[in-house]
């Protein structure tokens, strides 16, 4: 009997679901073990009961809350897929302004009844059993979490920082290029892909469990970078958790 899984989305770019689709070869193998019973982007079918629900996106509207609650009600396990679902992600970037102000800025005064709330992670509405962080998620991590769940194990995320994966891959350090990098305090699991691409870490996978903030601040000072610069970067994907970064 194949395990029934569903993929759902709320406010987001669908990039995490697409990452699952992009597993291609592995996806075919996964389909030997699981049955995708609901995936609006690619399927017309609907399902009543779901064993594992993967949910992308943040919650912005009352209708979202109800739909998420319904998904929770018919799912045994609910996994937050990607930063938007995990902590609000980029959607929360406007948290410093009220939704009304944002609406005014984009639509003017012409859509008075367009109602949204400050984007929230899934956990603000329902119990989230597990999370796969990242913007977008890493396909291999999705597979690892799915594997663990299929084996009735607790999925585990790396507890170490992106720096580890960066050093293992022998990438040049972003700080040496004068770039603010969140690698030292951000949870690994992405194989330092942004640093591989010549950029720096913007912390899309969130903080490690035990971020060493005080040494980190010292290093920033050493490189002549300000706390504001780093917070600006940190806020890109983590505005919901901003306080803990201070």
């Amino acid at each position, binding site marked *: 009997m194949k395990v029934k899984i569903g993929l759902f989305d709320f406010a987001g770019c669908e990039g995490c679901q697409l990452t699952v*689709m992009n597993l291609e070869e592995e996806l075919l193998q996964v389909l030997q073990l699981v049955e995708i019973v609901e995936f609006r982007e*690619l399927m017309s079918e609907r399902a009543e009961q779901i064993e594992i629900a993967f949910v992308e996106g943040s919650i912005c509207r009352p209708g979202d809350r109800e739909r998420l609650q319904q998904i929770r009600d018919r799912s045994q396990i609910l996994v937050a897929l990607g930063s938007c679902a995990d902590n609000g992600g980029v959607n929360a970037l*406007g948290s410093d302004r009220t*939704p009304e102000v944002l609406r005014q*800025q984009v639509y003017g005064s012409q859509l008075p009844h*367009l109602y949204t709330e400050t984007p929230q992670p899934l956990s603000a509405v329902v119990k989230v059993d597990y999370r796969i962080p990242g913007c977008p998620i890493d396909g291999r991590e999705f597979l690892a979490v799915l594997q663990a769940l299929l084996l009735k194990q607790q999925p585990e995320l790396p507890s170490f920082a992106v720096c580890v994966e960066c050093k293992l891959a022998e990438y040049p350090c972003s700080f040496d290029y004068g770039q603010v990098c969140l690698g030292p305090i951000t949870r690994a699991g992405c194989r330092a892909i942004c640093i591989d691409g010549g950029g720096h870490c913007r912390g899309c996978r969130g903080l490690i469990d035990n971020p060493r903030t005080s040494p980190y601040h010292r290093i920033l000072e050493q490189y002549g970078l300000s706390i504001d610069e780093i917070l600006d970067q940190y806020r890109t994907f983590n505005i919901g958790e901003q306080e803990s970064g201070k």
Partner: protein
Amino acid sequence: MSQRIKLDYLTRIEGHAHLVIERKAGKVTGCRLEVVETPRFFEALLQGRHYSDVATIVARVCGVCSISHTLASLMATEAALKIEVPPAAQLLRRLLSYGEIVQSHLLQLYFMAVPDYLGAASLFQLLDAQPELVRRALRLKRVGNRICEVIGGRPIHPVTTCLGGFSTKPEVGQLKQLRQELVASLPDLEATVELFAEFEYPQFSRQREAISLQANGRYPLHGSILTSSSGESCSVADYRTQIEEYLLPHSTAKLARSRSGSYMVGAQARVRNGAGHLSPMAKKVAEALQLEQSGNNPFENLKARLVEVIHCIEESLHVIDELLLHGMPRINSNSTPVVGGSGTAAVEAPRGLLFHRYEYAADGLLQQADCVIPTAQNLASIEADIQLLLPQLLDQPEELLRQQLEMLIRAYDPCLSCSTHLVKLDLA
């Protein structure tokens, strides 16, 4: 008696939408494509951000066309800050765009359209009956993703792109390997052409205007001149003179129209305005598929997409050869940004024209952003097509009606995740 048909949660499209049809005494009185994708106010989110962060954030508008958003954003900022992009980087950007078009088109063709024509609810349903078809679909999609991976670092939200070009370049070995993979995909593409040649496409015709970037010696992709099938053209920087966004009185959506009204963008529009510049192989495929070039039958969009896939694969081979032949002496700008000012750029995203326009203050922070996405421009066309198609379908059972209308909407491959400001809510 008035009746309201609501097709909730259209499936196999990118993003969320409902279709609402109102009829009275057998006549259609209203038809709305309700986009219920949550507004995320990206243009507002960008305000106050430093120019070096804008592209990374705005890529998150859409996972499906994140490369187009990234490139349009970078090009708009480069125009504003007067940053030059070296030729090798421009080549790499073209290659990256080709990769996105290939993977996006194949996703739409196989995963969203094929089930309609083979009578399945999803491609996964065909896994047992036609495993080779599903495998081929995944193999081909992989090819597009591989281009994005090698050039952009990953298929979604590229990590190698930056203002002025690229922050890292592919290794020669990787390009050679990619070339081999592209060549190896040709038999699969051939089989795909055969598959799509067999489908029976619904007959439908409505006159329309097609707008795309001008084929400036090359099939439209990146460029600075807009062109219309009506014969008009203008500079991309002046897109607001050609295209205006407007609100429908009965609805709350921002749509776009040209001076002549609704228009289409995307594969069909590009083929109509630039068919002469298709690659030799693509031209042959267009012929084999009997692609009609007027673009008046939206169902033919599928054929146009497949033709573009062939074109992009063939062009990618040429670009790779050029990169291998001349090397990549410089992939990043060495000019100093002139901070402050405004810039506009347009790229041909898989679904059509994508505009980004930014204004920067002297401190390098973004003051004003405007993004016009392809689907916003096609929305009026979709509604116009539905209105024309509906009377023929009204007597059919709702399930069939739904299927037919969904097929039409899917033919446009609307991407509603791109909800920068494409919002239409019916809370009634």
